[in-house]
């Protein structure tokens, strides 16, 4: 969490800086098949976040010693563009992005049927073009869509959302200011059909009650986000049906 400050994060009506009530999501838009050369791709706009995801594979794993004879491994690479944040970010992997790459890889590995592809690897490139809090969850949500669009066999999609504590109140889907000046941030990703948690991290402090409130908010929000994922996937195929006007 950022430094404590006396910045007001709620107005007199109890609304947040961007006019949302505590349980509101930012607007989300997902597009699929945006890159021709990738096996699958997706672009997500989640509030101010703009993230491009490309999926390649499953393909034979290289270097050879990384090959697992029983299953494929998922290699997600989360990368922030130098211009994605207010102050220029030094390009290249750092501690934060390596951690995020790892947790996203593991979250996706739980959903993908890796046992069908021995000796293979599945690459997921997540490029953050514009960051505005919650990029790991937005990147993961878009990755699941890109993987489905690539025709990779999966047990389920993966969908995530964040919640946190701002000015002592539990709110859904933190914005940049709330992330910086709030007291806690809790990203969770689940497989929507089974409700299994595949990613959970927490920054800051929440009491047990607050944690429960935050998780139930997230679980409810994932239903809506999952619907957005499904609509995005379907959209390309519904259009071809309408083209003939039959």
């Amino acid at each position, binding site marked *: 969490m950022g430094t404590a400050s006396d910045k007001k994060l709620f107005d007199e009506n109890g609304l947040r800086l961007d006019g949302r009530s505590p349980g509101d999501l930012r607007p989300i838009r997902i597009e699929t098949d945006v890159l021709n050369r990738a*096996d*699958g791709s997706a672009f997500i706009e989640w509030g101010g976040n703009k993230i491009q995801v490309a999926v390649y594979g*499953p393909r*034979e794993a290289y270097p050879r010693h990384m090959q697992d004879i029983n299953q494929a491994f998922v290699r997600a690479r989360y990368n922030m563009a130098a211009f994605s944040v207010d102050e220029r970010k030094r390009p290249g992997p750092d501690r934060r992005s390596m951690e995020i790459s790892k947790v996203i890889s593991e979250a996706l590995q739980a959903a993908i049927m890796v046992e069908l592809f021995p000796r293979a690897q599945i690459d997921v490139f997540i490029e953050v073009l514009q960051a505005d809090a919650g990029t790991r969850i937005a990147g993961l949500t878009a990755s699941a869509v890109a993987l*489905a669009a690539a*025709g990779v066999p*999966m047990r*389920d999609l993966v969908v995530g959302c964040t919640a946190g504590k701002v000015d002592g109140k539990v709110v859904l889907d933190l914005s940049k200011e709330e992330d910086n000046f709030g007291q806690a941030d809790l990203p969770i990703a689940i497989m929507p059909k089974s409700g299994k948690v595949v990613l959970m991290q927490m920054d800051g402090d929440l009491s047990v009650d607050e944690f429960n409130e935050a998780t139930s908010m997230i679980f409810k929000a994932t239903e809506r986000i999952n619907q957005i994922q*499904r609509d995005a*996937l379907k959209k390309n195929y519904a259009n071809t049906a309408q083209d003939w006007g039959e």
Partner: protein
Amino acid sequence: MSNVKQIVMPGDPVEVPNLKPRNGVYKCGDNAYCSQFFGILQESEQFVDVVPFTGKYVPRRNDKVIGKVIEIGPSMWIVDISSTYTTLLHMNDAPWRVTSGELKRYMNVGDYVYAKILSINEIKESWITMKDVGLKKLEGGTLVSLPAPKVPRIIGKGGSMVNMIKDATHTRIMVGQNGVIWLDGAPENVIVAIGAIRKVEEEAHTVGLTDRVKKYLEDKKGEIVGNSE
């Protein structure tokens, strides 16, 4: 649901009364099956399958595929069949009397072969053979490729779709199960045939495709060379 088949996502339950789930599903509970893919539900007489919209080719024994030689070893050609894994063509499975180290004289890197999957093991290593009727090194012609899951639509029931395209355009067509298609004929005709194939590719998930392709081929009749009329 009139002209588009039902679309399913990974994890969606696959339940059709009286039909057994078969391909593209996994067990997600007692007597419950869920989809592995983002694709469509395809119903046949006894079974229901999930057919993905796209995805890599998964080799199966006795499939005929079109592959590209990408590397040459002392006794094997390494062939790319646009699958997750490359495959091997041993010199004894080639239709020529090849001696070790002399593979380059028969097929070089970049050549295409029409071959059959001979065997595949648990770690997905596979071997192909050219020792069967109709299997050969491809010379001349044009290649197009499309996602492997759409190949059954290109072929059609009992080869009806591909035969219709062949007859209407007077081209020779060979379809590999891996989604690579070889065409040969007058350039004008090949262009029309590729157009028809692309149409099938785009509309593979819809019902009544044969009629629309037929109409497309009829509209293009004027562009085809060698028609008897």
